[in-house]
């Protein structure tokens, strides 16, 4: 299995989702809120190497590795991700 999400991607995802990042233990914990509720959380390894693997983040966000990569890069927006969660009934629809 190839590495798809690196530490750099993880940081971009946290920033794109407007996550609250908290330094705890060995990780920077990212907490994502939507309408006041905590809807996702994941840990980002604290290290200097940007290419460290973070493929598990896609599972924490309930999306595939490919979508997680798109989220880190430009194409997928926070709204798109929210819609994906709604489609999967992991969030209540408006």
């Amino acid at each position: 299995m190839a590495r798809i999400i690196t530490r750099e991607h993880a940081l971009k995802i946290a920033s794109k989702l407007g996550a609250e990042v908290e330094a705890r233990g060995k990780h920077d914990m990212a907490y994502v809120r939507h309408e006041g509720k905590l809807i996702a959380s994941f840990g980002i390894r604290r290290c200097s190497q940007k290419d460290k693997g973070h493929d598990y983040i896609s599972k924490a966000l309930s999306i595939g590795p490919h979508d997680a990569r798109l989220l880190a890069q430009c194409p997928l927006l926070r709204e798109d991700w929210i819609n994906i969660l709604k489609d999967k009934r992991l969030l209540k629809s408006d």
Partner: protein
Amino acid sequence: MANRQTVVDEFLRRFPERDQPPTWQECGSRQEIYRRKRVVKIPRDTGSVVALSKAFSKWQALAPLIMQRVSLGFLARRIDALEAEVQTLKRSAISPRSVIVPIETFAPYPFEVVKPFHVVVEPVDDEFEANLYDANIGASGDTESEAIANLKDIMVNLFERYSKEGEQNLGPGPAKQWVILKGLLNKRA
């Protein structure tokens, strides 16, 4: 002992009109009968005998080459198949596979395991990823043990955060994680 040509010559001299096998009376012994029976089947025409002999000697010369080519082709195909099989076996033997690791302690964190549980550790490139699939919690590390340690770290962080946050502020995903985490670990008093 007479060679084949001598026997043919002798038979043709003795029975010039015969093209049938010799009778018992015409033969001295069983060995002689056997030899003559074989000899009778050879055409009388000396030219044919020579031609047959030549053809036979050519076949004798060609046979090893043909056999060699046939067996080389066969061997090449067999070696290809075996090489492919060896590569497959090598890959499955060398590449580490997923392992299921029991978790029985959260030391040095001030947490205790409510009931032992298992996590899956799998290789990802040159790193490892530990996952608690039930709760959708994962972590990676340079080694299997580092990945497990990182997973424990994330589980502890989430436990503390979710307990502070309160159940009413958790979305469906974190709420499910919280229920699972509460069933697996507990903060020491």
